[in-house]
């Protein structure tokens, strides 16, 4: 790796950390559980790394490791996004008046 590329990578790293801090400190504690599952789903982006490892087909070992990695990250992406949405759907400002049928 060239030193310039390394420097650019570091830029990205530091800026992302800074941006993450700014964005996430604005999330209210009300939504901390969905936040966790959302960031989990998003960090399932390691899927792109796993895909290359699995698909580059260099050796059997690396393909199997890649396969396992793809399974893990896909599970996270799929279940993470579904669960986040399920949770966020439940947060309502005001509820419809309770049904009277129970009475």
């Amino acid at each position, binding site marked *: 790796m060239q030193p310039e590329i390394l420097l650019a990578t570091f830029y990205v790293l530091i800026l992302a950390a800074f941006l993450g801090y700014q964005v996430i400190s604005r999330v209210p504690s009300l939504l901390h559980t969905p936040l966790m599952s959302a960031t989990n789903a998003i960090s399932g982006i390691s899927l792109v790394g796993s895909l290359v490892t699995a698909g580059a087909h260099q050796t059997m070992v690396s393909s199997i490791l890649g396969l*396992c990695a793809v399974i893990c990250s896909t599970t996270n992406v799929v279940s993470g*996004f579904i669960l986040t949405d399920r949770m966020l759907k439940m947060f309502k400002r005001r509820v419809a008046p309770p049904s009277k049928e129970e009475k």
Partner: protein
Amino acid sequence: MEPRTLFTELSYIVASVLFILGLRGLSHPESARRGMHLAEIGMLLAIIGTLVNREIVSYEWILAGLVIGCAIGLPMGLMVPMTAMPQRTALSHAFGALAASLVGISEYYLHGAALGPIKMPALSFEVLLGSLTTTGSLIACAKLQGVLPGAPLTYKGQNVFNLSLLGITVICFVLLLIFPGHAEVFYLMLFLSFVFGVLLVLPIGAADMPVVIALLNSYAGLAAAATGMVIGNNVLIIAGMLDGGSGFILSIVMCKAMNRSITNVLFGAFGSVSETAAAGTGEMHETNIEDVAILLAYARQAVFVPGYGMATAQAQHVLRQLADALEARGVTVKYAIHPVAGRMPGHMNVLLAEANVPYSQLQELDIINPEFPATDVAVVIGANDVVNPDARDNPKSIIAGMPILEVDRAKTVVVLKRGQGKGFSGLVNPLFFKPNCEMLYGDAKESLTNLVQAVHGA
């Protein structure tokens, strides 16, 4: 630049922007869902962008992985009950960290010493953090699920042993930087990291899990970011840092809410402490359903304080029914949410939202505390430490300084509790002995169900 590579890079840039916008949406419940849809589109774009990558020569393994991953992920996403969110979150940290770790192992296996002096530290870091997070999260998950006992597992010299193990792991890390070609050092470090993850979480009690989960979240994110550095992929670095940063912020929030430091949580083995600085004295007053129902029915304001006990009893829906019945009688109902109530950040909010409680009724610590003196009845449902007045009044208490919900300032406090036993932390709660506190023993769900009927009859 080849058009394919250009497409891949562009998809990554767009994905990064969409991820950030998605998380920004989470700053308000109204915009949150739309934000997450943006993030989903970003994810899809990044995956498509990767699949056209020229390094990929065969798609069988990929397809198999995607299919199996969906086969596990779909039912998990659709069927996991909200009460199981803490353990499922811990499990997903394990998956995420394992993926990062596996990619790292594969990279080392393929390139070894050829990785060079810049990639090697990132790779070692990734594998070390990824592996310890994998096993650590699995243990956390097992504790939350009840497969392992929730109480801290401690033995003499534990901290010394764990720290020396960590020390050896770090020595391996340093050795690898100097002699990157020594595969045996790499695999030893890998093995030690797995073991260390187990040992790190075993001594931590279930009540401290909110901090641990947040911390493991942070580690999983950092491992992903390190993967990005190794394979030179910016979107991975960005997403990983967002995840890592979020976990880090959450652990700080949780630690502040308990007035403890992260080191104290990790090495303090809280909950094994049996000392009682100022044991409560006097008698507890037991009450019954009818009296509580009358108290609630004729109150002007009632505040519910849910804790982990509400989650285990799955009592959130019937609590909502009780609140409905009270509101129909003109009682103002609010819910007081402590940041560490439950087993993960925001746990109570999600459960109550599931029961259709509007989020405007969920009040945080500093908003609700000034309201307690004007509250007629505060009902504590399966919470203990977060309402322990010792934290405020007794500087010698081990939870001294922890911000609490000051329910003892309400005119009457009703505590729904399973039995007379101590809470999880083993601390005596002086609240229970105060003259304005009444105890209602029994399963929370059952008691609440009976209360709903009694209130209707009142």
